[in-house]
Every structure is written in structure tokens, then in C-alpha cells.
């Protein structure tokens, strides 16, 4: 008994010594020293601004009157935004814009990836062509599409008229079509990225399963449904979530193309925040809207997360 205990202790001691020899733990301050440069910047440029934006969402403030001009108003900003019609209509437009452009982009990306994964001549050139819009800056894109969409002289309407549509939409100048015009652009610029991500995912689909399904007499579509598609669900989930977050945030393209117009036809929430903050200088109100937006996105992401836990197949 005593012997075995001594033996155990000795063994433990040995193991302890060996462990320590193998990996001498560096002192705690070294870790802090390594993160310090990044952490200080993070605190100054991300964490502090976040706290500050939460704080001023409870205040009324135009930046011109300086920090003394801050007037605390409690929940007034939130109450006002819930009562503001333009807040709700902007939110609705965000849903339409993201809800249409993101699934379309993702679906087109998947189709392109499936095609490029097969024996199509000039695959790498095709991939390049689809991808170029993604690396182009938004001002260059906006400039080009404003010309393309020109109601009278633009090539799009010229083409539509030449195939017998005498009364084509006036696109950016029409409150019915402006949002659609932006959605088309979003799909055009994002599909190549989705395709590239899908192409990478397709390389992980086990070929054996495909062959087994083929031997069982499954047709192409059948094989896609039971083999390929399940393996692509994590990628689809990733693209949809990040796509929704991205689409609900960008205001640059809208600022360039339509400035939220005509009327309010393209004022989505992100542009509404920009407008209130940097055109009307209502920083408190703009921050409140931004926080509400964030909470909604967080909620939607969590709901999607729940859904994907049931529907997503992780190989």
C-alpha cells in the first residue's frame, strides 16, 4: 500500500517535472506585452467608440456645440425612431434590398461554381470574369452603371428598345425601379465572390459518394440534391449571413447612385443613419438607429443560427 502510494507520487512528480521541462510557461506579463499594441488600438478605435455611441444614443447632440452641448434625453431617441415613419419604411427597404440581392447573389454564385467545377472550356478565365466586379471600387462601378442605366442614351435601354420594349423603365430616376436597379448591381458585383467560395467548398465533396449514387441510378439533379447540396449548406449559411450583414450596412453605393432617392425610394436604413448623422448632424438619433439595426441583425443571425443547426450538414 505505502509502496504503491510512494510509487504513484514519484510517478506524478516525474510527470510534473517532465511537463514543466517540456513547456516552461512564460510569465503573464509577456502575453500582455504581445497583445498590447493591438489591444490599445482596439480600445481606442473600436471599444471606446462603441461605448460612446451607446451613450450618445441616449442624448441629443449636434457635434458643433462641442462636448458641453450633450443633453441627456433618456429613451427619447428610441421612442422617436419607433414613431418615425421614415425609420420603418427605410427598414422595409433594407429587408427588400437584402432579402432580394443576397439570396440571388448566393444562388447565382452556386450555379456558376457548379458549372465551373465541370468540363467547361476556359474555366479560369470565366472565374476571373465573374470575379472582377468584386475587386472594383464602388465609385468606378457607380460611374459605369449610371451611364449604363441612363434612361435615354444608356446601352441597357437602347437594347430594351431595340427588342421592342418601347417604354423601358427609367431605372435610377424611377421610384419603382431604383431599388431594383441597385439589386441588379449588387448581384453583379457579388456573384463572383460567392462562386469562388463555393468552388473551394465543392473540392471537399467526396467523389466516392457521387459515384455510389450514380451506380444506384441517381440522375444528375438527384445526385446534386442528395450529395452535393448537403455538403454546401455550411457555405451557403456563411454566405447568406455575411451577405445579409454586408447588404444591410453599405451606404456608399447608394450615396453615389441615388442619394436615397428618387424621393425616398432607395433610403435604406444604413443610408438613413448616414443621412441623420452626417447631413442633419443628429448624432444621438443616428446612433440610436444604428444600435437598433445592430440588435435586429444580431437577432436575425441568431435565428438563422438556430435554423442552420437543424438544416446544415457538417460533413
Amino acid at each position, binding site marked *: 500500500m505505502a509502496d504503491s502510494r510512494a510509487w504513484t507520487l514519484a510517478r506524478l512528480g516525474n510527470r510534473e517535472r517532465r511537463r514543466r521541462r*517540456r513547456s*516552461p*510557461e*512564460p510569465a503573464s506579463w*509577456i*502575453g*500582455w506585452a*504581445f*497583445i498590447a*499594441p*493591438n*489591444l490599445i*488600438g*482596439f480600445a481606442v*478605435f*473600436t471599444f*471606446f*467608440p*462603441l461605448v*460612446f*455611441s451607446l451613450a450618445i444614443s441616449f442624448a441629443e447632440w449636434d*457635434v458643433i456645440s462641442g462636448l458641453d452641448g450633450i443633453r441627456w434625453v433618456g429613451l427619447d431617441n428610441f421612442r422617436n425612431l419607433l414613431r418615425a415613419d421614415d425609420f420603418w419604411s427605410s427598414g422595409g427597404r433594407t429587408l427588400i434590398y437584402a432579402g432580394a440581392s443576397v439570396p440571388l447573389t448566393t444562388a447565382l454564385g452556386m450555379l*456558376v461554381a457548379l*458549372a*465551373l*467545377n465541370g*468540363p*467547361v472550356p476556359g474555366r479560369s478565365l470565366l472565374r476571373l470574369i465573374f470575379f*472582377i466586379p468584386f475587386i472594383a*471600387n*464602388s*465609385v*468606378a*462601378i457607380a*460611374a*459605369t452603371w449610371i451611364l*449604363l442605366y*441612363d434612361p435615354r442614351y444608356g*446601352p441597357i435601354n437602347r437594347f430594351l428598345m431595340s427588342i421592342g420594349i418601347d417604354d423601358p423603365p427609367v431605372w435610377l430616376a424611377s421610384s419603382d425601379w431604383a431599388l431594383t436597379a441597385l439589386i441588379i448591381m449588387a448581384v453583379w458585383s457579388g456573384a*463572383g465572390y460567392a462562386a469562388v467560395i463555393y468552388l*473551394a467548398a465543392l473540392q471537399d465533396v467526396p*467523389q*466516392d459518394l457521387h459515384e455510389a449514387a450514380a451506380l444506384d441510378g441517381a440522375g444528375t439533379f438527384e445526385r446534386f440534391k442528395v450529395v452535393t447540396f448537403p455538403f454546401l449548406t455550411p*457555405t451557403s449559411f*456563411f454566405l447568406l*449571413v455575411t451577405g445579409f*450583414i454586408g447588404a444591410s*450596412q*453599405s*451606404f*456608399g453605393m447608394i*450615396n453615389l447612385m441615388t442619394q436615397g432617392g428618387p424621393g425616398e425610394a432607395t433610403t435604406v436604413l*444604413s443610408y438613413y443613419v*448616414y443621412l441623420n448623422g452626417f447631413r442633419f448632424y443628429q*448624432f444621438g438619433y*443616428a446612433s440610436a438607429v*444604428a444600435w437598433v*439595426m*445592430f440588435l435586429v441583425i*444580431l437577432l436575425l443571425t441568431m435565428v438563422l443560427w438556430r435554423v442552420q443547426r437543424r438544416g446544415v450538414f457538417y460533413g
Partner: protein
Amino acid sequence: MAARAPGASRFRFRLRSERVLSREERIRWTIVSIVMWAVAILFLMPFVWMVVSSLKREIDVFRLPVQWIPDPLTWSNYVEVWTGRYPLTKYIGNSLIVAIARVVGELFTASLAAYAFSRLKFRGRDIIFILYVSTLIIPHQMLLVPRFILYRQLGIYDTLWALILPGIFTVFGTFLLRQFFLTIPQDLTDAARVDGASELQIYWRIILPLSKPALASLAILAFVWSWNDYETPLVMLTSEDKFTIPLGLTRYFDESGGFSAALISAGAVSSLIPIFIVFLALQRQFIQALTRSGLKG
């Protein structure tokens, strides 16, 4: 069916396309190819239009029927945007300064922090890490207003620092590199520690050399994002001599109400060329970078 060599599955991609196709499959893929190329040409049209317009005289841009080959071939738009009233050279210079400073700074701070998060244990590490990750999904706009105010207080509003500094301390870069560092075997660093190497030596001599692909990924993404960023300079810059290329291009937008289609096209093409060269040169790394950053999902 012939037995497959072990490890053949690694070459799936090639095998699949080289497989002998049945007649029916050949017809199907021919149709797919034609449709793909048609869609691709449609996708390319805006760029073709941009390039063609940039080489035309202003009066010819909208002339009918559309001239797909400019006649006369006009280079004066490029001369104007490069050396005229709003010279792109200045904007491109600013863009380069910002992009290079951001890339170098981000690689430095992110790799150090990623080393700590992946290799060092210390009190509070996990709390900080959770804090970091939870800010990854925060909408960019929430930071616009407070950063605007902060920059005015710090005196960096309307300077290039307003674009550079926040780009140096990113959570995204730290996270991307940490994920890669975690794949480097722990034994390597342990062995170095036993041999008496300091943490700084391990970081510099072992981790960084082994992480070149990940560092390249981060550098490429940071460069492209910085180059293309329009929203930050829109909010943070007002002086024209500080403008980066996207904001500089907008000068050709609001010139007296309308804008010159030929000039703006020449400007747009000019702004795309550098990023296009970077992309063509580093295409494989770029795509790797995107798929790698996609792993965070």
C-alpha cells in the same frame, strides 16, 4: 472499374474533368458551357463599356449605333485625369500611402496579438478574446459617428491618419492569423522553449516564417479593402489634397451638375488598373485569402 491509387482522392478535381463523358453528358456540358460564356460576356459588358467610353471623345460616348471600337481612338481623357485639374496621381499617391501603412501596421500588431492568443497563457486572455470576437459582427456604421467625434478630439480628422490608424488595429486580422497560428504544431514552440528561446525569438524565427501564406492573405485583403474604401474617407476627409482614389474619382461626378462620361470612365479605368495588377499577380493567394477568411463563419 480500375482500382484507384491511394491518395488519388486528392486529385479529385482533375479526375472529374478528365473522366470520359457519355454522349448525353457531353451535350449537357456543351449547353452549360455556352450559357456560362454568354452570362460571362454579359457580366463583362460594364467593364467593356467603361474602357471603350474612356477612349472616346465625349460627344461619341452616347452616339448611335454604339461604337464598340472607338474611332478616333482618344487618349486625351487619360491625359486630363492624370495631369488635369483633379490629377489622379495625387489621389493614387494618398491611396498608396494609406494602403501600405495599413498593411504593414496591421501585419505587425495582428501577428503579435495572434501569437499571444494562440501560444501564450495569461490571466484575462480568454475574456479579451471573447470581447474581440464579439465585435466582429458589429455594423461598421455604429463606429462612424463616435469615430468622427473621436478623430476631431484627437486632431486626426481630415488627415490620412484617420484612414490609417483604425486599419492598423483590426480584430479581423488578429482573428485570421490566430486561426492559422493554431494549426502550427505546439511541439515546435515547446521544443524551442526547452532550448531556451525567448517568446520574441519563437515568434520571429518560428511562427512568422511558417505563416507566410496567412500573412500574405491578410496583406492582400487589407490592401484591396484599403484601396477600395470609399465610405471612411467620405466621412473623415474634407480637404481635396488628402483624398484617396475613390473619393478623388467623385470629383469627376459632381462637376457642374452632370459629369463627363468620357473623363469619369478614364478615371474609373485608371483606378482599377493597380488593383487588377495586384489581383492577376497574386490571384491564387487572393482566392486562398478569401476562402481562408470565409472559414470564420
